[in-house]
């Protein structure tokens, strides 16, 4: 019962703060938007805890809420955009239709998922799951190949940052 209540609190919080990232009035200011995102990450981290994925929960806070978002906020503050530079937010038909379609998909998804409770696939995790041990087993044994591939992915991202950002050498 407690788990249920916690889940709904965390999930609701995650969705609400995620919406705040883009929706006015909070989302109008990039800095507030970024801070909302950090909040959202915290809620998600709480969800990981509920799922007994402790390592993931800690990593989520450390890496995303900690390192990455700090970088975001640095960048936003360095740019120091004024309201004028941000311009007027516009309401377009595209946004309206888009929200409508996404809501429809969400409703459908909720219907489908709720009909799936009790499905054989949705089983409880067994002992050892979510621990450093279990995670290491997945990363370095079963999913070694994609894990190695991720290193290439990161390398590519680094190259991209360098290529796109560096000033022209004269």
């Amino acid at each position, binding site marked *: 019962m407690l788990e249920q209540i916690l889940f709904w609190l965390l999930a609701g919080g995650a969705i609400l703060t995620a919406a705040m990232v883009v929706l006015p009035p909070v989302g109008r200011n990039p800095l507030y938007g970024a801070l909302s995102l950090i909040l959202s990450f915290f809620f998600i981290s709480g969800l990981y805890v509920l799922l007994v994925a402790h390592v993931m929960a800690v990593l989520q806070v450390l890496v995303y809420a900690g390192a990455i978002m700090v970088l975001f906020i640095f960048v936003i503050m360095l740019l120091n955009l004024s309201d004028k530079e941000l311009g007027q937010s516009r309401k377009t038909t595209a946004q309206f239709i888009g929200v409508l379609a996404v809501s429809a998909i969400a409703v*459908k*998804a909720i219907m*489908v*998922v709720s*009909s*799936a409770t009790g*499905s*054989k*696939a*949705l*089983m409880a*995790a*067994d002992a*050892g*799951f979510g621990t450093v041990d279990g995670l290491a*087993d*997945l990363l370095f*044994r*079963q*999913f*070694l*190949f*994609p894990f190695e*591939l*991720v290193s*290439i*992915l990161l*390398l*590519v*991202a680094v*190259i*991209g940052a*360098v*290529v*796109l950002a560096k000033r*022209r*050498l004269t």
Partner: protein
Amino acid sequence: MVDDLLLISPLLIVTVMGLVSLLVGVFAPAGSFKGWLAFLTSFGFLAALGACYMLWHETSAGAAFSSQSFHYSLTLDHFGLALCGVILLGALLATLTAVHYLPAQKSDHAEYYALIAFSALGMMIMVMAADLLTLFVALEVMSISIYILAGFKRDSSFSTESAMKYFILGSFASAILLLGISFTYGATGTISMREIGLAVAGGDAHSELALFGMVMLIVAFGFKIAAAPFHMWTPDVYEGAPASVTGFMAVGVKAAGFGALARLLLTCFGAPEYRDGSAVSWETLIVILAVISMCAGNLMALAQKNLKRMLAYSAIAHTGYLLMALLVVPASSDGEQALNALGGGLVFYLLAYTLANVAAFGVAAAVGARGVEDAGEEAYAGLAGRDPMLAFALTIAMLSLLGIPLTAGFMGKLTLFGELLSSGGGEYLWLVVVAVVNSVVSAYYYLRVVMVAYMQDESAEKPIALLKSAPLRVAVGVAAILTLVFGIMPNKAINASTRAGYSLVHTSNPATYGARVSAAKPAITSTVEPKDVAHR
């Protein structure tokens, strides 16, 4: 373990070559000519092609990896190898077109060649991936490299804008893909394609959840392969990206996307009730996407004046034709219909498409290198007089895309349509008719290019200087010649691609491939069996 490394040698070669060119590039003096790196990378692609060729003959019906980490993540079969070959060929030729093009665009950076290599790596892994995680990571490796390449002309707002658009929309599609993977996992409790297939076929999966995931996966791949209505980004990105990149993007992403989509659908959702049991099947969805894609692509292409933009719409139309290949149900040797296999249409068509597009975009690079890329068709006026060889190659490319006999494009269409007709008792005759009508409409815009090149005089006020580049001419020439060769004597290639399509019978069918793998049980024993992990 060493055997395993041998089995993924094409991947390793490409990775190493990418790293080498990246490192060597760092030591090259700033501002110096970096084109020689292209030859290094091309050599890597050539070596990897050789490795693919070697593995093709080593592999009887899908070689088994001895170590689990590979065998869970990768499938090595003729299908994957054949598509790797197509991708490598496209990468090889597209790299050569960039040698002098980049300096002309003032974007001659060493990273270009490393990025081409890494995106080719991503593509190759995509078509070999055996689980959804590997598939996703490979797709991201490919996509992010391509995003960067699309924006490689940093000085051009046009190029940067197209890269940004592609990046945002591509990330959006990635999100959809991840959601699709989550739903599929929720339905089956596994991310291994083979086990998803087992669960789905065995009725263990929650069917609505699985369908939900399936649709999202199709949508996400529909975005990557530019199937209407998920194609909106294509014209803008094709037009804005540097021509040498567009050429690679057009052929590589398409081959990888189709390869992955075909393997995914046939392995995971090959069961009859997901395939064509009723309206609730991916076949229906694919048919709809195919019809919309070819009609929209062809009609919109009619109105285009810019060659790159026209080729973008043509790419959408060809996606429509290619989607038809997924509907083919070949009969195996004992006359049984093999639901989880393809005919020879897909791979051969991709090959023909790759060659024609590399040639066309190569010519676009040569014409557009001096900063007139955004110009309309008048840039091509009188090309025949200025450079007969490029004009001829462009003609061959257009004729092949149009499907004129004695070009590879014609054989591709013939194989594909013929196979679709003879499979499934002719229920798709109407679809073939729609496709043929569409290909006739396409004559109008493909031939206009030829007409402009041959029959119009170049504008007198500002004649446009062509890029003088021997590697580009070699690449374009080879592509044109191969287009003719595969049009006149295609039988070997068609047989190989049929074999590739059939090989999915073994590797995607849980019963046969699973048995083969367990017969060659891994050298390293593990306490964690894949099933246990997945169900925990």
